[in-house]
């Protein structure tokens, strides 16, 4: 009986029910993966189909000929590159800003006891649940007063503010799993409080910061409602808003639309796949713990 053997928790014999179960598992996995990736494949194929063929026959899963004209036209005669640049600029400000704020807050919540700690813990949780539609209404006027409306910096500040609570939660969870002995021995060796943070804590926190940074990047890159409301000129629009406009403007040019979609999604998917393991662990811990 293989089940009794200590090192084998599962029987390895190829019995009929076993084979049937494995086959069923792989069929289900295949169906799910097809459902997930199908839309992306359709998008990619459409972007490579010549527009004349699309107009005549619609989308097909096997375009007769491959053409990159849509990409050339997208980059050459639409403001796509401007939108791309704006998205990158917003993220370039929002990611470091939110990371600094979230790291500080996470260190305070994980390592210190202070008056109001419980309040801030709850605030971090509640802040993740605030409805964007409610805040957007008064934020618009606020940004106008600050001269930050229709401004890359203004949108970046808003994105950073909205990413900070969850990033804090992610980093706090990460810090809680780092034992405190190292810091204590650093302190015994005479390091100042700031030296302990800078030379011991921050290096240990670096992998968590990569995951949190990617989360902030994804959030900022994908964000729609604030960008739609605040960015009203071509020179400031971000990619999601550009794509949204394209849907209205190029209703019949699906080759162009899908080409834009492919280029817009590549950075997030690449970034996500690189850190997905840690990020998913953090997200899951976020759900388990809040």
């Amino acid at each position, binding site marked *: 009986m293989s089940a009794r053997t200590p090192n084998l928790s599962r029987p390895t014999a190829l019995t009929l029910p076993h084979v049937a179960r494995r086959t069923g*598992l792989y069929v289900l*996995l295949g169906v799910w993966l097809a459902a*997930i*990736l199908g*839309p992306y494949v359709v*998008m990619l194929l*459409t972007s490579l189909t010549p527009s004349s063929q699309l107009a005549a026959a*619609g*989308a*097909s899963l096997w375009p007769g000929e491959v053409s990159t004209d849509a990409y050339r036209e997208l980059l050459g005669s639409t403001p796509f590159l401007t939108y791309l640049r704006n998205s990158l600029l917003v993220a370039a400000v929002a990611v470091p800003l*939110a990371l600094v*704020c979230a790291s500080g*807050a996470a260190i*305070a*919540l994980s*390592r*210190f*006891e*202070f008056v109001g700690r419980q309040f801030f813990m709850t605030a971090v949780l*509640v*802040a993740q*649940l605030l409805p964007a*539609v*409610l*805040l*957007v*209404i*008064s*934020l618009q006027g*606020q940004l106008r007063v600050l001269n930050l409306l229709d401004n890359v910096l203004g949108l970046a500040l808003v994105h*950073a503010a*909205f990413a*900070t609570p969850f990033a804090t939660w992610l980093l706090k*969870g*990460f810090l*809680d*799993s780092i034992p405190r002995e190292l810091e204590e021995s650093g302190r015994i060796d005479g390091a100042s*409080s700031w030296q302990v943070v800078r030379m011991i804590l921050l290096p240990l926190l670096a992998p*968590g910061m990569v995951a949190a940074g990617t989360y902030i990047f994804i959030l900022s890159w*994908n964000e*729609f*409602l604030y960008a739609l409301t605040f960015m009203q000129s071509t020179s400031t629009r971000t990619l999601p808003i550009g*794509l*949204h406009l394209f*849907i209205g403007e190029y209703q019949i040019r*699906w080759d162009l*639309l*899908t080409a834009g979609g492919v280029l817009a*999604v590549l950075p*997030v998917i690449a970034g996500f796949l690189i850190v*997905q393991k*840690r990020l*998913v*662990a953090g997200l*899951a*811990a976020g*759900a*388990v*713990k*809040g």
Partner: protein
Amino acid sequence: MTMTPTRAAGAGAPGTRRAAVAPAAPRPRPRRRGLEAYVYLAPAIVLVGSFAGYPLVRSVWFAFNEVNPFSGVQGFVGVQHFVDIVTHPDFAQIGRNTLVWTFGAVALQLLLGLVGAHLLNARFALRGVYRGLAMIPWATPSVLVALMWIWILDPNHGVLNGALRALGVTDRPIAFLSESSTALPTLVAVDVWQGVPLFAVMILAALQGVAPELREAAAMDGCGPVGVFRHVVLPAILPTILITTLLRLIWTANYVDLVLIMTGGGPGLSSTTLSLQSYVTAYKAMDFGGGAAYAVLQAAVLSVLVVLYIRLTAKGARR
């Protein structure tokens, strides 16, 4: 404050480790005291306070005032906006749509997420890669999700209608997004598509916290697969399921991007939710007070869920 993790929910340890908690959990040391903590907190307080806290308070104040988009608050009107909203003839339909959208999407996500989590927990080749690929919809911009599905659902050129015709299911194109009977269910389906992966991964994390020894012990005691799930696995993952479901209910109710882009709430009002109505009232009708009131009304209803959520997570959060 010390907390002994007793429930399996505590096993989804933050960060990387997810080992069984019971034997070697060291007693948490007391945290350091001091004003230094506020120095570390300060940047976050300033940023979140000015761009989330302050606007929140001001938006709520808007809901009780007449507000001009350009010149600001015009005068206090008390609960007039709320009275207008609930006495409006469209309110019943918008409320019903919001319930269908929120509960429909989350119920399906929970169901499929449970199945998905079990699939992801099985042993198979390239599991790590598969888990990563399965999460891609979560990282995809909502605009892009909308764009892909508008194209797939396109009545004339889309692949779905093409496939339905080829299979002989229908002989005329179905305009999923522009018929009032199909618009909202289609939006729910797209949201389910986007939301299942996160649900699955969160439940997966809880599943991984269930010690295999427990399952085996139950199986040896004569539990069938269903019995093991009911008596061992389900009690262990229930806290996670509850918390994730609450979180998703709140997020889905507040999620306006897909509806705004794919149908704009139409045709007619057939897919208009409270969040969308809030945005439309503020930005199409230029009535900021009324728009804020819709959002405040929804937030008030959701606050019940928020309180539940805080209570459920408080155990873990207090550490």
